[in-house]
């Protein structure tokens, strides 16, 4: 019995000492430390970007400190200030707001800490930007509708929260296409506050007032698109109405596969998250890097759905 114990103790000792040498080796390299502040960890897409960052960081041996700004620009600025105080090597910010989050960029640059904006922009130019242009997503979605309707028909649009960057840009993109097709009429538009239940109610009400006049629905995100879709399905109108939304969340991909949602626009969380970490490492290690990494949107329809389903 005593032998077994001593072997056990010895092996535990060996195992722990092994581990120690390993961690010693790593700390000699000095891990790159990156402070990350995210718009909101209650948003599925943002959580996806954050998850991709964590994966990439683990792969490259980068230490991440991730915090949640909970949609509050002021909180985000304070978080960046605390990153500056902690002397992180690089800051990655997923801005809450174009203007209100800008002071955070100014502060980081003044403290000579590189700052990367991921997913959306601030008016003050950061060290680097990794993300997509939301205007393009609106354009892609509306172009699909225009093509499907042969450039003629009545459209309703469901906005996100009015005044947010994504809402403004997606609307802008959609309106650019509408201008090109004078026979496409926007007969109603209203906010669904990015919310499925709200948009379902809204669509039900629109069906009451416009009924069979509606040819297509453009929802500025998938949650709202799926809400509108449910309302149309419940009233048996879905076959006559095209529904398109943006983000390509899991539910939306399933709906496209089933053929209920006509199309969604894929925003690449993986490339945005991983790209931000890659740029951060390049900056920290003094390699050359691109100042603006633009990740294109992609239209997802039944034809190419296979590429997007895991």
């Amino acid at each position: 019995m005593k032998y077994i114990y001593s072997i056990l103790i010895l092996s535990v000792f060996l195992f722990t000492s092994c581990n120690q040498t390993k961690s010693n080796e790593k700390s000699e390299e000095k891990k790159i430390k990156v402070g990350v502040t995210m718009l909101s960890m209650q948003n599925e897409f943002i959580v996806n970007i954050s998850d991709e960052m964590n994966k990439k960081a683990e792969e490259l041996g980068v230490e991440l400190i991730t915090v949640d700004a909970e949609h509050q620009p002021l909180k985000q600025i304070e978080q960046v200030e605390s990153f500056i105080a902690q002397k992180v090597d690089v800051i990655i910010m997923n801005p809450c707001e174009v203007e209100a989050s800008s002071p955070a960029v100014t502060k980081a640059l003044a403290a000579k800490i590189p700052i990367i904006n991921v997913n959306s922009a601030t008016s003050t130019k950061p060290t680097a930007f990794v993300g997509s242009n939301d205007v393009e997503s609106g354009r892609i979605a509306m172009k699909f509708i225009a093509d499907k309707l042969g450039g003629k028909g009545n459209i309703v649009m469901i906005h996100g929260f009015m005044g947010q960057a994504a809402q403004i840009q997606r609307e802008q993109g959609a309106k650019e296409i509408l201008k090109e097709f004078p026979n496409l009429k926007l007969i109603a538009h209203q906010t669904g506050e990015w919310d499925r239940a709200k948009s379902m109610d809204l669509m039900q009400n629109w069906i009451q007032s416009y009924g069979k006049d509606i040819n297509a629905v453009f929802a500025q995100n998938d949650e709202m698109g799926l809400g509108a879709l449910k309302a149309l399905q419940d009233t048996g109108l879905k076959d006559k109405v095209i529904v398109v939304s943006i983000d390509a969340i899991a539910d939306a991909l399933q709906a496209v596969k089933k053929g209920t949602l006509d199309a969604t626009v894929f925003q690449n969380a993986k490339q945005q998250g991983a790209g931000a970490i890659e740029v951060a490492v390049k900056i920290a290690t003094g390699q050359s890097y691109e100042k603006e990494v633009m990740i294109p949107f992609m239209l997802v329809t039944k034809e190419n759905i296979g590429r997007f389903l895991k």
Partner: protein
Amino acid sequence: MQYINRLRQYGIFVVFIIICLILSLISPQFLTVSNWTIIITQASINALLAFGVTFVIITGGIDLSLGSMVAVTGVTAAMLAHPDTFPVALPIFAGLLAGLLMGVFNGFIITKSKIAPFIVTLGTMTIGRGLALILSKGRPISNLSDSFNFIGGGNIFGIPFPIIVLILVFIICSIILKKTLLGRYIYAIGGNEQASRASGINVNRVKMAVYSISGLLAGLAGILLTSRITTGQPNAGAGFELDAIAAAVIGGTSTSGGTGTMTGTLIGVLLIGVINNGLDLLNVTSYYQQVVMGTIIIGAVVLDSWNQKNN
């Protein structure tokens, strides 16, 4: 004089009728069976929350955790409502239980600590939101069973199931408030807590009961919402408590306690529903919708205080 008094008493009902008349004149679609089916279905979730909070407000309390309870119970139910795992009774039971437990927790802290209900439920509102995010890992839970989705989306004899739930709950709540001893105690405590205590009413037990009912109904609302949109969402229900409180207040429930009826709350709920629906039908911008809604809430309270002065 008696006529005027009566008119005041039913003031909000008169306002409701007038608004309906105006809307039916401007919008030909407003006064149709299909549109009213939609209005009542859409209002059903707010109605359940408003009935619950009416009990609470009559005792002189408030419940701000309603929206978060909707999220927690919705997510809880959704987690158990995947197809081919459990019978549909389990997610329903678990959702209701989650709501009940949160309600009991509210009641327990409020009665034991003597902290104002406003503060306690503000705390549980935040705790609840966090719990919903923890349970769901921040992501919506989809792919629910058909039998579960029937609760919010199905029809019985052509009547949407949420409307049937609404009617049943309304009847039960009205009976509790009007015909039972508990109902009488609820009014008594709201009227004068000290006097009620002196006359031998177990004030704490009554308070426990109202917050538990409020939680239970929030659980039912959470299940209904989840099943209606066929997904359990951790962000669901944000701000629902304010709509529910507004409905109760519009319906004549006094925030200082002691007065209020379920019928009044039902009219408040329908008024909010009718305005939302009508403004959508007329394609009024959402900015104006909010202004209109706020004006009506204040108008209702002014009407209410005017009534009280005159009585």
